[in-house]
């Protein structure tokens, strides 16, 4: 929003103050100022000049040769403006002067010298109109500087609208002026208005508020006999500087009033709208707004109607049919208050966010509707004294906000601020901002003004903000917290995640990636993976992204595919979230998962599969000091390899899976490469109690290692063989390790090393042999033979 300091000056006298410094304080105390503009600074030597003679240019159809009296000196000027004529008084920039930041020198136009230039409003920077010369009143004193004639010089600043969202009172100059008054310690002048009771003898307007939910207040006044059509220059300059556009006097006045008080107003042509109903329709209907666009207005939208016919979208925009036109001489003035949320939603549905709707959605003060009409009449009558009220003020006040009165004591302020702000300063600040503030002993009683009471200030902490922001946060003496000693509250945090990440990055050289919580339909399709049915987003940016992922696999596999050019062998991992359907309360079963995917063009699938198995086992051992058990399992997802999918468990709890890919999916990634993929549930994993280190005295006696080369039948797994030595005392058989394995058609061979030792003595071969024999005997029963 653009704010003119000239306009602010109507309400608070800031003379003698550094205005730019004050605007900077506004940023620190009220709302963010984005930019300051110095208006009228790029004009020099522009005066009222009278065209005393005009001749045709000898070499041009369009140009004229003028003599312009600039007060004391007459200039020869070449001019091409369409409305140029003898006797006209115009803004004239003398040779050597400046407009639009450009110096105007002697210019030769079609062979004739021009020693200056007659200007349009656009060239003065006071409007976008460059259709012709600006015509000044004939009695304008010739030679008078244009900046003395009109308020062209101004300091205008732009406030970030977002920083005003919670301040409905700051959507007009008067509210901003109140802030400046408080910041500068100067007095805020009351708004000059017309006494509306003067019209009480006239007939009221028929106003019927049928929708008492969405309309808080509807105030109207009819005015007739409006003779003036064009707004005064200074008014038009303010509108232009504040981002508006001058149209005609009545439209300009409603805009001016909105920019001044923040109250949107609508002027209906009284010939077309002479009574008002405020209601919603039961079905959608077509409606053409002022901007000429035919729209469909739905049944949730509050409408202003006249005898059942819609004439405006309440709080958003009027209709084209009842628009004020240049010949309108009587109007029905609307100054109303609508439900903010309803206006916002209507504007959003229509894709039509207007200056009015932007203000209404902030929940404006309904107390403002009547003074706004009083102010409108004051401005109108100042400009057009012939105008007359044609109705009495008609005010339908449906809903009022409750009055808010807050009490607190000085100790509360001290505790909240951490500094000592004087009682007098507290009172002074609050009163300057329009709060009714009283003090009795240590207690303060504060009456919140209506313009802050619609939602902005409701509790005493809000009062703290008012006091401190005007005090200035830069003026705060800052101090450290003084908190009694207490031990840090322990939570599981992300310790297991961090440990796992370190292992994966530092030991296994994997790369951590981040992705999205939803499945990507397109990427899955490229992999030949159907997206698994799961809870969906109702408003995804694209239907491709609407299903929440059930597991980490597809995301990581698509990253493998995309990263193929990165290297011949690499691995990825992500700790992310998935949703495993809904629980009995219809809530998502969200789980934190570690997903790992390995890719290689140089290693075999088997190597990769075992490497990944090793990674999972290492995670179990290193992070939790517990053994992770891997066992062949049925695939959980269609893209997993039916024969090489394993389930990971720990202490009977299922933690995740490990797999190679179904050939159909592998083929989409890379027929010649190997891929392995795993997932670990980090919520469950983090919850496993960490195993203790149990120290065992190292044996002083040498042990005996027995290597057995075994021929294993097809389909026999190591874990199926384990019972063969399960009965041997673990303090004797201290370990079994894999020394070698190979496989060829019809033959699977494993070499296992059995380590025997004792804490008490050196074992002899005679003692060990029976154990070995026992193992071999049991293995033989399983069909496992010692290789010859």
């Amino acid at each position, binding site marked *: 929003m653009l704010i003119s300091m000239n306009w602010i000056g109507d309400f608070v006298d800031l003379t003698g103050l550094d205005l730019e410094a004050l605007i900077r304080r506004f940023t*620190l*105390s*009220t709302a*963010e100022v984005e930019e300051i503009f110095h208006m009228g600074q790029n004009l020099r030597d522009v005066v009222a000049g009278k065209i005393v003679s005009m001749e045709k240019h000898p070499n041009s159809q369009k140009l004229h040769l003028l003599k312009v009296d600039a007060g004391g000196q007459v200039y020869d000027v070449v001019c091409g403006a369409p409305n140029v004529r003898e006797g006209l008084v115009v803004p004239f920039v003398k040779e050597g002067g400046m407009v639009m930041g450009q110096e105007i020198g002697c210019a030769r136009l079609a062979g004739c010298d021009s020693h200056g230039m007659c200007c349009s409003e656009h060239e003065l920077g006071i409007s976008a109109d460059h259709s012709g010369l600006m015509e000044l009143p004939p009695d304008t004193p010739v030679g008078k500087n244009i900046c003395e004639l009109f308020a062209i010089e101004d300091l205008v600043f732009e406030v970030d609208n977002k*920083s005003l*969202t*919670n301040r409905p009172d700051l959507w007009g100059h008067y509210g901003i002026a109140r802030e400046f008054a408080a910041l500068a310690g100067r007095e805020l002048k009351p708004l000059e208005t017309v006494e509306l009771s003067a019209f009480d003898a006239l007939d009221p307007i028929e106003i019927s508020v049928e929708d008492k939910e969405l309309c808080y207040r509807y105030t109207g006044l009819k005015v007739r006999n409006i003779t003036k059509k064009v707004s005064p220059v200074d008014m038009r300059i303010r509108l232009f500087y504040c981002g508006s556009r001058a149209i005609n006097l009545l439209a300009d006045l409603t805009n001016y009033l909105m920019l001044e008080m923040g109250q949107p107003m609508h002027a209906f042509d009284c010939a077309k709208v002479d009574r008002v109903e405020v209601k919603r329709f039961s079905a959608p209907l077509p409606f053409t707004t002022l901007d000429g666009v035919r729209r469909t207005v739905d049944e949730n939208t509050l409408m202003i109607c006249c005898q059942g016919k819609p004439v405006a979208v309440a709080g958003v925009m009027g209709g084209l049919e009842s628009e004020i036109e240049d010949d309108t001489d009587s109007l029905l003035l609307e100054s109303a208050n609508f439900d903010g*949320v309803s206006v916002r939603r209507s504007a959003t549905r229509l894709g039509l966010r207007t200056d009015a709707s932007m203000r209404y*959605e902030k929940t404006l003060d309904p107390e403002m509707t009547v003074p706004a009409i009083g102010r409108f009449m004051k401005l109108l009558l100042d400009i057009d004294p012939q105008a007359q009220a044609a109705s009495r003020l008609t005010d339908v006040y449906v809903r009022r906000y409750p009055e808010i009165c807050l009490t607190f004591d000085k100790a509360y302020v001290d505790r909240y*601020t*951490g*500094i000592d702000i004087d009682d007098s300063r507290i009172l002074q600040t609050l009163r300057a901002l329009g709060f009714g503030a009283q003090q009795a002993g240590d207690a303060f009683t504060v009456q919140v003004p209506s313009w802050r009471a619609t939602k902005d200030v409701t*509790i005493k*902490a*809000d009062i*703290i*903000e008012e006091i*401190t*922001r005007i005090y200035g*946060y830069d003026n*705060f003496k*800052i*101090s450290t*917290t003084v908190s*009694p000693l*207490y031990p*840090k*509250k322990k*939570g599981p*945090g992300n310790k297991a*995640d*961090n440990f796992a990440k370190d292992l994966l*990055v530092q030991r296994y050289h994997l790369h*951590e*990636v*981040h*992705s*999205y*919580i939803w499945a990507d339909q397109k990427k899955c399709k490229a992999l030949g993976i159907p997206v698994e049915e799961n*809870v969906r*987003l*109702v*408003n*995804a*940016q694209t239907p491709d992204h609407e299903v*929440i992922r059930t597991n980490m696999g597809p*995301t990581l596999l*698509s990253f493998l595919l*995309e*990263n193929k050019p*990165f*290297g011949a062998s690499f*691995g*990825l991992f992500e700790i992310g*979230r998935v949703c495993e359907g*809904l629980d009995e309360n*219809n*809530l*998502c079963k*969200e789980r934190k998962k570690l997903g790992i995917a390995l890719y290689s063009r140089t290693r075999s699938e088997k190597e990769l599969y075992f490497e990944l198995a090793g990674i999972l086992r290492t995670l179990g051992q290193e992070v939790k000091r517990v053994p992770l058990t891997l066992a062949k399992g049925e695939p959980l997802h269609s893209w997993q390899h039916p024969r090489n999918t394993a389930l990971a468990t720990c202490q009977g709890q299922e933690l995740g899976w490990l797999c190679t890919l179904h050939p159909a999916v592998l083929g989409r990634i890379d027929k010649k490469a190997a891929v392995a993929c795993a997932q670990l549930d980090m919520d469950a994993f983090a919850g496993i109690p960490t195993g203790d280190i149990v120290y065992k005295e190292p044996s002083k006696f040498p042990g005996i290692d027995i290597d057995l080369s075994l021929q294993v039948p097809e389909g026999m797994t190591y874990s199926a063989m384990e019972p063969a030595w399960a009965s041997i005392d673990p303090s004797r058989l201290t370990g079994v390790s894999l020394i070698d394995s190979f496989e060829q058609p019809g033959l699977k061979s494993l070499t296992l090393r059995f380590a025997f030792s004792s804490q008490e003595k050196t074992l002899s071969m005679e003692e060990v042999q029976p154990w070995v024999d026992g193992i071999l005997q049991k293995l033989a029963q399983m069909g496992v033979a010692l290789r010859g």
Partner: protein
Amino acid sequence: MKEKIEALAQQFQQELQGAASSDQVEKLRVAYLGKKGSVTQLLKGLKEVGAEQKKELGQHINQLKKTVEDKLSQQVEAIRQAEEQRQVESAESYDITLPTGGQLGSYHPITIVQRQLEEIFASMGFTIEDYKEIVTDYECFEAVNIPKDHPARDMQDTYYLENGQLLKTHTSAAQNAIMRKYGPPLRAIFPGRCFRNEALDASHENTFFQMEGMMIDKNISISNLIYFMKTMLSEVFERDIQVRLRPGFFPFVEPGFELDISCLICGGEGCPTCKGGGWVELCPCGMIHPNVLKAGGIDPEEYTGFAFGLGLTRLVMMKYGVKDIRDLNSGSLKALSQFTHE
């Protein structure tokens, strides 16, 4: 006998010069000092010499024996050294400049910055808390004082799920649960993924990270908040940071602030990064709204607190000069494999 000793000594000298390998030296040792060696024979011959000569000759022979022993071991040492020298000279000299190197893994840059921040907060006694990504309307909005009709709840900002839950739009969605879990007094940070329903471009992501923190105790004040933010941010940026607060509106704090820091590029003089103002908007913060404390089971008359939100993703982009936010969730190893170390 004496002549014989002399002759043997000379003979040894000659033969020693011809012994160029350790084998030859060993033969020589056997020939002179072995059981049947010449020097051994001489010693044996002493028995036949008269007593008066025995002592003198004995000394001579032992002298010779010692000389032979010394010379032989010197020769062995010389041969060994020469052999080592040959090995050294014939060895390949490796080209250490060849571009070899260990394989490196990489952390996501969010992890790196998150850990740096976590370390700072842990040092100040903050509990680190991890939180869900799919939350309820209550957690995300109602519990943090965002009323039913607030624009933040609109579909264009928030991702809603079919079952009525939503993807958390801010880490503040964890405030309520954390207050209830630990109770006051409390210092906690909670980093996490957040989601906003918006179209992607170089500076907008629908999935990004924030880190939120709060401190609740008796008598926590605005003055404390400013002091804390200044101290904390000076740690984060590893230099003395000037902060300034401006009023900012966030429903879960009152008063709420936008915190600016002195521009890191120009130090506050004014430059293109700070648009000449010397200040850069960094993070929102504020005194926790009494309604939020109440919802968290904490009595706002007894306790006060402050909360702040750091844009983790934004900090990563600032720190590493990442210009396109989409790189972070791209899974592209060309981009991400550069972050090899913490």
